[in-house]
């Protein structure tokens, strides 16, 4: 009985979301096949981004709100790939390499900053994201087309300087990963390549934590002081964790955007930080503990709600916006809840 209670408490969030999802599905009366095909697609699209959050959590850095830096790098790379008209898989590869290179630098800078803000990593990384967003806007609103040459005029604002609100990937790298290998089961389409990449990352994370570096990350995550006394270079390990997370976020953003097909120039990266973190938390992760299964379960649950919330809202209140609102509200609520739990656990109770 006690055991059952413990399990219920520690899995409270995923359980609550499962119930919510099931009832929303029932209310929305969405055909199961449609739901299944949507979820499979979103698994291949979003899981990589969510997985990029795991390493910093295990390294004791908490939720890396700084993955928006990686996302920005991913987008920046895609803009140029589109401009240079590099198509298909090659385009994706070039985008990933460029994004990876940019995000190594960004991750390194973020890591250095976070090392100066030990114990306040989450808020620091969040503000870092906002700050980087300012620079990102500066570059893509004022420098592109003026300082930075950009040939594809249709993506530029009428004055010829600055990117438009949306940049189209159709005709270049849209679905470039999805198309080469697709399996159809009824109406459900399986995009094998992105799923394989996700599986590859899962394998990498699993293997990483069987290596010396992974063990160091775990040790630092558990207790920085003890790790340092044991001779581990704590700062270096933390920087590595953040760099890996940022690079994965960049690649994740490329995978995400090739599936979506258009880049929402000034918003895509912002949303991705919020929704990835919410999804991971919904899957049962906390600010100190996260597994691959948390990420996968989180994507399934969170995106089920995403798919069905508008129809459920429509059925219940006659307005799809209510459902929209509801899911946004839930994303923030689940993050707020996780952060509150984090603070509550950090402050040891005296009795």
């Amino acid at each position, binding site marked *: 009985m006690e055991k059952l209670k413990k399990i219920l408490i520690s899995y409270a969030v995923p359980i609550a979301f499962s119930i919510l999802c099931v009832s929303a599905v029932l209310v929305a009366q969405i055909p199961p096949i449609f739901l299944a095909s949507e979820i499979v697609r979103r698994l291949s699209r979003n899981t990589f981004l969510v997985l990029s959050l795991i390493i910093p959590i295990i390294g004791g850095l908490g939720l890396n709100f700084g993955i928006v830096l990686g996302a920005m790098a991913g987008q920046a790379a895609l803009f140029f790939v589109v401009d240079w008209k590099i198509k298909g898989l090659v385009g994706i590869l070039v985008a990933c390499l460029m994004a990876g290179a940019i995000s190594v630098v960004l991750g390194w800078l973020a890591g250095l900053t976070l090392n100066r803000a030990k114990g306040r990593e989450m808020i620091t990384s969040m503000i870092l994201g906002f700050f980087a967003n300012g620079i990102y806007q500066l570059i893509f609103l004022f420098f592109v087309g003026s300082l930075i040459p950009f040939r594809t005029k249709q993506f530029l604002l009428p004055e010829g300087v600055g990117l438009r609100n949306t940049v189209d990937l159709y005709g270049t790298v849209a679905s470039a990963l999805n198309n080469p290998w697709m399996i159809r089961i009824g109406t459900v389409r399986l995009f094998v390549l992105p799923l394989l990449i996700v599986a590859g990352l899962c394998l990498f994370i699993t*293997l*990483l934590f*069987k*290596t*010396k*570096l992974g*063990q*160091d990350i*775990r*040790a630092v995550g*558990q*207790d920085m*002081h*003890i*790790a*340092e*006394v*044991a*001779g*581990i*270079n704590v700062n270096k390990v933390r920087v590595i964790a953040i760099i890996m997370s940022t690079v994965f976020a960049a690649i994740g953003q490329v995978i995400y955007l090739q599936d979506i097909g258009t880049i929402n120039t000034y918003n895509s990266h912002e949303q991705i930080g919020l929704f990835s973190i919410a999804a991971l938390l919904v899957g049962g992760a906390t600010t100190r503990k996260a597994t691959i299964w948390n990420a996968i379960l989180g994507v399934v649950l969170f995106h089920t709600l995403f798919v069905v919330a508008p129809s459920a809202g429509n059925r219940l209140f006659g307005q799809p916006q209510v459902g929209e609102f509801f899911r946004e509200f839930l994303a923030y609520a689940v993050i707020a809840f996780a952060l509150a739990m984090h603070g509550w656990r950090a402050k*040891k109770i*005296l*009795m």
Partner: protein
Amino acid sequence: MQYALEMRNISKSFYGNQVLKNVNIAVAAGEVLGLVGENGAGKTTLMNILFGMPVIHSTGGFEGEILINNEHVNIDSPRRAMEYGIGMVHQEFMLIPGFTVTENIKLNREITKDNLLSKVFGKSLRTLDFPAMRKEARQAISTIGMSIEELAVVAGLPVAHKQFIEIAREIDKKNLKILVLDEPTAVLSEAEAEKLLDTIRYFAKRGVAIIFISHRLSEVLKVSDRITILRDGVVVDSKPSSSFTVSEIAEKMVGRKLENVVLPPRAKEPSDEDIIMSIRNLKVYMPGEMVKDFSIDIRRGEILGIGGLAGHGKLGVANGIAGMFPAEGQVYFEGEPYRLNDPSYALRNGIVYLSEDRRGVGLLLDESVEMNIAATAIEAFGSFTRRFLFMTVYDRKKIREHALEMIKKLDIRCKSPTQTVRRLSGGNQQKVCLARAFTLNPKILFVSEPTRGIDVGAKKLVLDYLVSMNREHGITIVMTSSELAELRSICDRIAIVAEGKLSAVLPPKASDAEFGLAMAGEFQEVLQHG
């Protein structure tokens, strides 16, 4: 003479407060140097300097020089210290709670093997070789003659085991040349401490230079070749141990003579007629300190001691009553049934518990002295608060007044009531705990290991304060301790726990042999001495 380690003219200040003045120590290979001194005398700081701990370098470094094998060295980080073959068993455990015993022993010295990735990206991606790590950990543990499951997670283990894991980790270091043991026996029972001393001798035989810090002077005398005494940051004496006696060392450490405690009389002696708490068939599930079947009547106004060997469950009793670990059994408090497994119920009924783990459970290390004294009272009874408009707020003034009074009464050595508790020495932290307990106005005070890791001077103050709480305020005290001598100095009766059961209740004047038999669980019948 060729010394393995020499520290010359070491001086160090913290925030303008000089804690070490021109300290010189030296130790040769295969030699055991006993380093003794009161808490706050600077022993731990000296060792932190040797180990290049971050706390030294973040507070402005130190003056003086360190020589290893007659060569100047610059030790600026624990990593560098380890490269020079310096190992350290810290006063606070340096074990990662969520890791297994093996992972802790092998921390940052993991055995690895190549894989595909590591060939491309370098050594840090080599795979851990768990079977090999496990084997070596096993070997290190058995060298000290312990049987600890090497795959167990450290968090749930009893403190004595943690201590031995720390030592096993040092044994496992193949390049170990200098080993520092900072208070390794503080958490051990006498039999375990003996085992540890054997381990020290084993290290010395291996040619390791050893610095042994302990408050148990007889142990220091037994195992050391030479003894250096520190007082207030200065070396007051350094001679071969054969030229010292325990009382001489104690005298030099404290700088004043120690005397036998004479306990003040009571207005009314406790008696079997007036039982404040009656415990029947108590079982407590505390890992490493299981209580299997414990029954006793606690008399109102007495000081009851609970003793026994480590791991036999003496610590479990107080933890169970206070609701820190799951417990079952029949307990009656002032004649009424008492609810177990409910810490706040215990607190509300005037049952206060001071944990043996004062840094972990007892204190809010990053809060101020005054908040530590007042926090539990605020939490449990809403004392020190006042109404402000529609809110309840802290009454800062009252907290400050009360804290100042307690600081004076207990001689808590802090710079101000707002200093954080983390920066206090162990003895002063314990005094803060006592002040907090007293603030709660307890009917029964359960206190576990109140003098663990505390120097002789502070020890006496703590014990005196317990006695005065008992005599002046009539608080019933149940004191659990692994130091028989201190139980015998202030308790009215001493209950000995063996294998989770009450083995005997003895008067403090009972002979050593009787206590020995009781601890071994061979005291045939439970004698109810008066």
